């Protein structure tokens, strides 16, 4: 059965009128059947009564003539009865004597005097048992009783063409009438149900609109006459608002996370800049004091050169990290150097050991876009650094896999919580609390067509990101 599921797939605004129409048709058929059945009973009763009266009347009139075997009298009575019969319903009446020989019939040419009446009694029924069978001619046979004894028999053929026509006419009118009524009522039902279900349709449309982003239903479209639906739509509107608020909150959280990351980076960088600055100021002071000593000046200048070179590297890394519109730039080994430059101060500040291994060549890296991969690696590193804690160990391994790039970030320390794993690995709604960095990793990797794997090996958390070649942007 495939039609039932197909029917279930129809909109409710079509299904309900269809069911209404089906019920109307069923009711119409039942009503028609009832009317036709009643009509049939009435016709049968009328027919039976006609036949009975005809036979009884003839019995009374014919008795003496049949006893005398008076052919003319019998014919005369039959002929007069036929002439006076109702609407020529009596097609033929024949009267037979005790021996079954025809005494006379209304149509002597068809039933000659003296013919065998048994030929005509075949298929005949008693007057009280006569029923419409669909045959236009019905045959009724009855014994001819006179003074309490049977002196012969009467066979009558009844023409029921008009009754059949009447039944056909009634059936046709019922059919047409019911079809019209059903159509009108089904259409009315469709209109009514469509009107009743309009808010539901609006709800469905609102939910499907804008590619799955639910939009609230305007106040004017809420059917306040229907408390149930009104409540439903109010709940829906509330829900859409909540979803919107949640998305806004997520966006704000992401921004905040970014600011936090920036703050942490800034403090690390300040530290990085501040350290050489002391040395540089000392060198400048030494040059100023020992300007006449070339060896000291040279040594101090070299010191200043190294310090300034370090500052230049740090500045460039920050510029690269925050440069706008880096989409389209391919990933380079230098990007990982920048990352190390950015992350190392953070790790050192917690006395963490950094295990930095970039095995992938420039060619393999170039298949990947720089900005998202840097973002993913930085987020994972920051997360790992936070999890590793004081004196922990954080590792980064970039390897050129068979058909893509594999970035593995490891860290010691506490295992990831279920909430963190849900953010990193699943696409479902964000669990309450916590940041959105891990979800950002998940979304970026998913966007690149890659996968994120998590493993806990002993005391170490291992997160591996596999990025396919085709997922990259080969510039």
């Amino acid at each position, binding site marked *: 059965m495939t039609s039932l599921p197909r029917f279930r797939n129809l909109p409710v605004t079509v299904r309900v009128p269809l069911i209404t129409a089906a019920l109307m048709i069923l009711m119409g058929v039942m009503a028609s059947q009832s009317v036709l059945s009643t009509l049939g009973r009435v016709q049968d009763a009328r027919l039976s009564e006609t036949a009975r009266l005809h036979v009884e009347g003839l019995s009374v009139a014919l008795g003496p003539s049949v006893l005398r075997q*008076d052919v003319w009298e019998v014919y005369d009575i039959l002929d007069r009865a036929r002439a006076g019969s109702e609407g020529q319903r009596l097609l033929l009446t024949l009267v037979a004597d005790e021996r079954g020989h025809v005494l006379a019939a209304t149509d002597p040419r068809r039933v000659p*005097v003296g013919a065998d009446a048994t030929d005509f009694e075949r298929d005949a029924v008693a007057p009280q048992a006569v029923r419409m069978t669909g045959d236009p001619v019905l045959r009724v046979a009855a014994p001819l009783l006179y003074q309490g004894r049977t002196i012969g028999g009467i066979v009558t053929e009844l023409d029921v063409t008009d009754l059949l026509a009447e039944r056909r006419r009634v059936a046709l009118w019922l059919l047409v009438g019911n079809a019209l009524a059903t159509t009108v009522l089904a259409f009315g039902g469709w209109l009514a149900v469509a009107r009743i279900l309009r808010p539901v349709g609006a709800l469905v449309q609102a939910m499907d609109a804008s590619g799955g982003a639910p939009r609230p239903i305007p106040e004017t479209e809420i059917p306040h006459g229907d408390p149930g639906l009104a409540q439903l739509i109010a709940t829906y509107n509330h829900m859409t608002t909540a979803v919107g608020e949640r998305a806004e909150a997520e966006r704000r959280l992401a921004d905040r996370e970014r600011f936090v990351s920036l703050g942490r980076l800034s403090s690390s960088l300040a530290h990085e800049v501040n350290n050489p600055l002391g040395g540089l100021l000392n060198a400048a002071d030494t040059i100023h004091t020992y300007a006449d000593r070339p060896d000291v000046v040279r040594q101090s200048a070299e010191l200043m050169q190294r310090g300034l070179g370090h500052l230049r590297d740090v500045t460039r890394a920050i510029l690269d990290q925050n440069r706008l519109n880096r989409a389209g730039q391919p990933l380079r080994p230098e990007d990982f150097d920048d990352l190390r430059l950015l992350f190392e101060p953070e790790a050192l500040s917690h006395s963490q050991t950094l295990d930095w291994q970039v095995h992938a060549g420039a060619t393999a890296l170039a298949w990947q876009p720089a900005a998202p991969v840097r973002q993913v690696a930085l987020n994972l590193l920051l997360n790992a650094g936070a999890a590793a804690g004081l004196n922990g160990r954080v590792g980064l391994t970039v390897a050129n896999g068979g058909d893509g790039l594999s970035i593995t970030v490891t860290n010691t320390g506490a295992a990831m919580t279920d909430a963190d794993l849900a953010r990193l690995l699943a696409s479902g709604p964000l669990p309450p609390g916590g940041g959105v960095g891990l979800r950002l990793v998940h979304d970026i990797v998913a966007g690149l067509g890659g996968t994120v794997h998590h493993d806990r090996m002993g005391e170490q958390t291992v997160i591996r990101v596999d990025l396919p070649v085709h997922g990259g942007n080969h510039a």
Partner: protein
Amino acid sequence: MLTRREAMLTGVAACAAPMVRAQTAAPFRFALTPVFLDNDAAVISSLRAALMAAMGQDIELVQRRTYQEISGALLDGSVDAAWTCGYPFLQHRADLSLIGVPVWRGEPLYQSYLIAAADDPATSLGNLRGGAHAFSDPDSNSGYLVTASDLARMGETPDRFFSRAIFTYGHRNVVRAVAGGLTRSGSVDGYVWEVLNSVEPDLTARTRVISRSEMLGFPPFVARRDRMEEAGVAACAAALQGLDQTSQGQAVLRLLYLDSVQAAGPSLFDGIALRMAVLGGG
């Protein structure tokens, strides 16, 4: 001022008045048979009205089914006069007298018709052997005697010649029996068939006249011979013979498609007597 004639008529009327009153108690009984249009109530009531007017007394029209019943009633005095047939008149010629004979198409004569269904191929009586036949009345001249005597001349009797012979006791019934197919043929009063041909052409159209007899004396009005002198009978004879003189009488005659009623002698029925002789000899 009364004329002499009017004064005389008034005197006669005054003298007759007690007699009329006396006869009012016992109406004149006049018998009819289905010899003519038996189902025409208008004819019967018009005839009664005309006779009452002409005879100046109440008339009781008595209808009987058969000529035999009429003859019996006449003879036993149950009825005073009757319109019967030439055959029963001759059967009881010694006891009955004519009080008038209708004139049809200018003559007091008519014919017997042998009829069959319109599509029957028979052309003579001989072709009808083995079929069912409808007679009118065993005492009817046109409805029995003519055919029976013709068969007697052929050395046959109706029972032998026909598969079945039925009596319908009415000339119109004979036509109905043949038209309806109950019998193949019938013996019918030619006058009745012709009148029916005018008033019920659909009925006679389903029949065909195979042969016509010679002209025979028209069914007469008769009374008992020994009562001919009675005033009622005489008045009846006068009324019948004077039908064409009054407007009521003329209306009746028009309804009956007759010209008049005239006096006639028994010799008018010699033809019937001849056929009776043939039948008696057969």
